[in-house]
Structure formats: structure tokens, C-alpha cells
């Protein structure tokens, strides 16, 4: 199993540009998450998905969009990039079943700089 994979690893964007951060998992997990980590801070939830076709906002969703057309993939779209979106982005997934908590598995992160 590759686990959770993210592409690209690094990206520099100009203000106003758009891009999609890719995330895929091969563990058949139903829940997936996008977090961002600003310098010196913990991770904050941007969006999450409880299954294909179902997504919802987290703590800091402004400026982002997501979709979940398959169980495996959960891309994060940045429209009109702003310097405030300079951060490290982590995708995570977990398996949720009735009565049991399963750990979240994290991808390696994408470092995004907007200038």
C-alpha cells in the first residue's frame, strides 16, 4: 500500500493563479481531510469528506473548494491564490466504522508559496 499520497510536493504560485492539490489513498478509507499548517502552528481543518459525493467545511474553508467523486481521491482547489494561503497542506484519511475509532493517516504534505 502506498498509503496517502499528495502531489505536488512543492509549488510556487503567483497571486491570482489557481491550482489543484491532489490527494489519493489506497486503503479504502471512507473519511478524508484537508488540513493546513502555518509556520509555528498546529494543523487546522479546511474541508473533510465522509464518503464519495459528500463534503463539508472545516474551520478555515475560505478560498478553497473540494470534490470527492471517488473513494480514493480528494483534490483541493485553490482559486485566486492569495499570500495568506502560503502554508503546508496535509491530506489525511481514516476508516470510520460503527463503534470504533481508527487513526488518521497523513500524506507527506505540499508546501505552497504564494508570491
Amino acid at each position: 500500500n502506498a498509503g496517502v499520497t499528495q502531489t505536488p510536493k512543492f509549488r510556487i504560485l503567483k497571486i491570482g493563479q489557481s491550482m489543484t492539490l491532489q490527494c489519493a489513498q489506497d486503503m479504502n478509507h471512507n473519511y478524508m481531510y484537508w488540513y493546513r499548517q502555518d509556520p509555528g502552528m498546529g494543523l487546522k481543518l479546511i474541508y473533510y469528506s465522509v464518503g464519495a459525493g459528500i463534503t463539508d467545511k472545516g474551520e478555515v474553508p475560505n478560498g478553497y473548494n473540494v470534490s470527492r467523486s471517488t473513494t480514493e481521491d480528494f483534490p483541493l482547489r485553490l482559486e485566486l491564490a492569495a499570500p495568506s494561503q502560503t502554508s503546508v497542506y496535509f491530506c489525511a484519511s481514516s476508516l470510520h466504522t460503527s463503534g470504533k475509532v481508527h487513526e488518521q493517516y497523513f500524506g507527506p504534505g505540499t508546501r505552497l508559496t504564494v508570491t
Partner: protein
Amino acid sequence: AQTVTQSQPEMSVQEAETVTLSCTYDTSESDYYLFWYKQPPSRQMILVIRQEAYKQQNATENRFSVNFQKAAKSFSLKISDSQLGDAAMYFCAYRSARSYTGANSKLTFGKGITLSVRP
């Protein structure tokens, strides 16, 4: 809303010695999970240990153990026999056990502690 506080931004330990990283949290829930994650320079988030709030026994994983004080809402991580590879940022995180659906499944993180290990 739940909050997680890690008030020590940095700590240092001599190799082979023991260090304790502090974490406090605030919640109105009675059933939840607490985690310690390690983030080395590679940025990969690695689960170190987890504690279920309904269990009185402190969790242990090899050289890592926790001191869970539910009434005080305190959750510290003890690293014994510190090794150079333990140098990393450590995050304390909270997760509700009230429901496994939706936003309750998310992790709430503290700001992290940077641990350095002196050879």
C-alpha cells in the same frame, strides 16, 4: 469548541535522558481521544501514542508514555532514553468520541513543541 494548548514552544534534552512534554486541553465532553503526533523535518505526521478518555490506565508505547489527568485536563508525553531520532516537533491533538460522523471526527491540534536532543 475544544481547544488544545501547548505552552512550551521549545524543549531540549540530553541523549539517553528523559523529557516530558506538556499539553492541556479544554472540552465539555466526557468521552474523547487524545493523541501525540511527531513531525520530523521530513514533515511527515507520525502517530506516537493515543489515549482513550474512558480508560484510566495511561497508554504506553515502548519508550513513550503519557500521564493522563482527566480532571485536570492534562495530557503529557514522557520520552524515556531519548535518542537523536526523537528530535522533532510534537503535537498534542484532541478528537471527540461523541460521534464518528462529520466534523466530530476531525483532530484539533495544539501549536506544537520543538524538541531538540543533545548528543
